[in-house]
């Protein structure tokens, strides 16, 4: 099953087909493909105009926010200043009302001058320069046809880009690797030119035309060359972005690939030649004569047609598009099979590992082994590891208290990081007023102080499932520095965002309460109440009901001192006794009100032997599940929950003991949902709320036991997916899930299958525990879910998109089901 075509968003325009240098390693002129000989010298105005229209049409029809256009050649500056002006204007005019244009030019730099830089500055065109290192390295290949050096002219161009006037145009340096050069000298000489980025490019090669200097296919000289630079670069504190290294680091840590040469991200690039022909990526020129050809052109064909070309879609298949060797490789998510061109072999086409396979494997493993130093910016920080026993048990659908503790430990790390990310983004976003920023700084100062004195107190707050849900909500609305809010075009609800980021103060207040330390922070008033995560809500309206907030968020001061929390809103103030709050005995009567009516709504606890489960029905960030949150429970409703939960826990303890330890260790919050449509039982989990299960009260305690088991499977698997790549995240195909009418994405199918593995076991256990018609019905349900789960496991195993670890995980699921 192939994935549908992905819209194209990057376009390389070959605006001039000749070059003023005669580099002997150039893939355009020295490779198998010689199509340049029959091309027009330069792109005509007609081709430019039509190309710009095609890109605009494509961007509009697919709703693209940004397209990137790279002016390329040959040597694009040979078009001349006026020609460049026309090209840039045509592109900007066509795209002005459609999307943002990220315009770049890649040049050898030898004729770049101040006038051209002024033109690029006027139109925000960023400039990349090709240079292979120091003078000796550069002149090994990058010479004029008569043998003269290009080095001094290239350096002059780089110096121009380093001036204050043009520095913002300086996109970076591109260096083609020659292993005859000293890697450290090459790196140091390029870094000395102060580029924002360096690209080290493997020379184009295939299995038919091996890399220069390659004596044996398994040699790793290119890895050794890059590793020498990596180690130097890392030891220096990563002073410049090196795209190959950053891409590997990004993919090793769950991020995107940053280059077409690595990773599983789909190819979204097309080339337009000087005659208007669409081509695939032009490095294919190194494979065989005519390799990049599509047979399509800007006059007769849309870019949608290009996106559907088999040569393009072949590079959009992610893991499933790779050969078997690559699919089974442990570093495939970082490598992605390497550059498509480098996989070519005459007998098998592109269904091979890269001719640089051994180099890429060694380099990625080397960077992976240095990841702790990398992630800490040079400081040794360990990474989370799940024991083999726990991983195997979790993969089989189970996991004991120790396994849950390992997952919870990683969640603790992630929540600390997300807390910092919210603070950092909120204080650099440019959105918050000076007053709001001062409040954030006070809250952060309190948090860091408590973290130093009583870290366990902070952990108790951060362990609350909806703290991460809150952080995710904030980060979804904030922009990073240095771009800032002013440059953004999103217009979120300002009052809502300010109230959201102000919740940092509420977290700090609760940490201070739990740590018994002094704090003075600002907390938001949301819907006539002030929420203290893990403790409860102070309703400051006369009836305790929620009210819609105004256009500006109201804030309160919260002072924690001498075992009392004093809250002030305008002229009103209230006091809460810390011992009462922490002892779960606080109620309206224990709160001394001075200045207005008040109602303290504490978090209540469902209790059963071996478990205390907080009922979260006040947290403003709890409503992040598939079904809507119920309002605060009445005392009678809470009593119904307690009755049902006690019996559900008894059912779990008696008949489903394999699931009980994990639930006791990891299930911390029950969030009541509104009743489902037509009386259906509804329940849900949220990916960003580890430890919480949401449900409407079912009529039958057995059903509550079942939904707790079912939903906690999602909790466990979500935490596993936070740690590991089990599947190719770029695979956007939909798959048949036997228990649903609609098709599901791969993660959805994996989640459903993992949950139903437990459901199958649940009904099997019920079959053994009951008799008569009840046992028969349980047996039928067990058989039904067994068949569906078995089929879904096979769909996952045959998807071609599981990583090696994912294959191991689903293999354990299969083994567990058969048991």
């Amino acid at each position, binding site marked *: 099953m192939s994935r549908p075509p992905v819209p194209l968003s990057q376009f390389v325009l070959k605006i001039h087909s000749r070059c003023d240098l005669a580099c002997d390693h150039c893939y*355009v002129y020295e490779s198998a493909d010689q199509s340049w000989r029959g091309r027009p010298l330069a792109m005509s105005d007609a081709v430019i105009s039509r190309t710009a229209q095609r890109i605009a049409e494509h961007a509009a029809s697919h709703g693209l926010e940004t397209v990137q256009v790279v002016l390329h050649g040959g040597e694009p500056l040979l078009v001349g200043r006026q020609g460049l002006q026309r090209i840039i204007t045509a592109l900007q005019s066509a795209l002005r009302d459609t999307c943002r244009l990220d315009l770049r030019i890649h040049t050898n730099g030898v004729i770049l001058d101040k006038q051209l830089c002024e033109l690029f500055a006027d139109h925000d065109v960023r400039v990349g320069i090709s240079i292979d290192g120091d003078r000796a390295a550069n002149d090994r290949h990058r010479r004029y046809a008569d043998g003269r050096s290009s080095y001094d002219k290239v350096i002059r161009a780089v110096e121009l880009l380093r001036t204050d006037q043009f520095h913002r145009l300086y996109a970076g340096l591109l260096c083609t690797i020659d292993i005859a050069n000293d890697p450290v000298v090459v790196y140091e000489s390029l870094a000395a030119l102060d580029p924002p980025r360096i690209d080290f490019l493997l020379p184009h090669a295939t299995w038919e035309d091996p890399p220069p200097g390659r004596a044996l296919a398994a040699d790793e000289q290119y890895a050794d060359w890059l590793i020498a630079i990596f180690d130097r670069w890392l030891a220096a504190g990563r002073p410049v972005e090196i795209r190959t290294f950053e891409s590997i680091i990004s993919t090793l840590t769950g991020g995107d690939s*940053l280059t077409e040469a690595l990773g599983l991200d789909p190819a979204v690039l097309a080339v337009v030649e000087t005659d208007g022909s669409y081509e695939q990526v032009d490095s294919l020129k190194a494979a065989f004569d005519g390799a990049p050809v599509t047979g399509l052109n800007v006059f007769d064909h849309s870019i949608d047609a290009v996106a559907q070309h088999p040569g393009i879609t072949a590079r959009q298949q992610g893991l499933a598009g790779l050969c078997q060797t690559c699919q089974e490789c442990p570093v495939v998510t970082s490598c992605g099979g390497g550059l498509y061109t480098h996989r070519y072999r005459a007998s098998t086409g592109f269904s091979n590992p890269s001719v640089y396979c051994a180099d890429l494997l060694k380099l990625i493993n080397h960077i992976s082994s240095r990841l702790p130093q990398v992630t800490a910016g040079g400081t040794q920080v360990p990474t989370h590891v799940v024991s083999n026993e726990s991983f195997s048990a979790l993969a089989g659908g189970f996991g004991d208290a120790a396994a849950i503790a390992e997952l919870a430990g990683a969640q603790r790390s992630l929540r600390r990081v997300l807390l910092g990310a919210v603070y950092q983004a909120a204080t650099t976003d440019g959105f918050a007023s000076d007053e709001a920023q001062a409040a954030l700084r006070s809250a952060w100062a309190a948090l860091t102080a408590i973290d130093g004195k009583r870290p366990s107190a902070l952990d108790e707050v951060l362990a609350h499932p909806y703290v991460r849900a809150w952080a995710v909500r904030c980060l979804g609305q904030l922009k990073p520095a240095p771009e800032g809010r002013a440059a953004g075009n999103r217009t979120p609800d300002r009052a809502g965002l300010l109230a959201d980021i102000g919740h940092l103060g509420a977290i700090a207040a609760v940490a201070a309460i739990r740590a018994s330390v002094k704090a003075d922070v600002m907390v938001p008033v949301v819907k006539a109440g002030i929420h203290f995560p893990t403790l409860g809500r102070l309703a400051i309206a006369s009836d305790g009901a929620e009210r819609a907030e105004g256009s500006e968020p109201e804030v309160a001061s919260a002072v924690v001192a001498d075992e009392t929390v004093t809250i002030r809103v305008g002229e009103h103030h209230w006091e809460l006794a810390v011992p009462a709050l922490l002892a779960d005995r606080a109620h309206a009567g224990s709160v001394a009100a001075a200045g207005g009516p008040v109602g303290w709504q504490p978090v209540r606890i469902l209790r059963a032997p071996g478990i205390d489960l907080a009922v979260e029905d006040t947290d403003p960030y709890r409503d992040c599940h598939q079904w809507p949150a119920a309002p605060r429970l009445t005392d009678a409703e809470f009593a119904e929950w307690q009755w049902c939960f006690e019996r559900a826990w008894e059912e779990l303890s008696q008949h489903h003991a394999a699931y009980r330890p994990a639930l006791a260790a990891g299930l911390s919050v029950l969030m009541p949902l509104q009743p489902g449509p037509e009386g259906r039982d509804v329940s849900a989990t949220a990916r960003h709320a580890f430890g919480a299960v949401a449900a409407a009260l079912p009529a039958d305690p057995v059903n509550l036991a079942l939904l707790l088991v079912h939903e906690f499977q999602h909790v466990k698997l979500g935490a596993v997916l936070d740690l590991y790549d089990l599947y190719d*995240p770029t695979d956007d195909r939909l798959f048949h899930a036997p228990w649903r009418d609609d098709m599901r994405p791969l993660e959805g199918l994996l989640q459903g299958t993992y949950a139903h593995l437990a459901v199958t076991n649940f009904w099997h256990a019920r079959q053994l525990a009951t008799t008569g018609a009840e046992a028969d019905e349980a047996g039928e349900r067990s058989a039904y879910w067994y068949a569906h789960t078995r089929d879904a496991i096979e769909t996952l195993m045959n998807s071609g998109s599981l990583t090696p670890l994912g294959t191991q995980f689903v293999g354990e699921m299969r083994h567990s089901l058969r048991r």
Partner: protein
Amino acid sequence: MRSTDEASGVSSSVADVRDLPLADILNTRTLDQAVARVLPDSPVARVAVAAFNSAI
């Protein structure tokens, strides 16, 4: 949870910052990478860069 210096486990790329002071988490690559890990589509985590990088 154990750390990478102990054997017989499945290593992840998520940095263990439980004992790293909260103040030291800011402005580190650890922060950027963890956000990218759990929120790959977040504007905070997004890196704008052209994938194409052939030299001429």
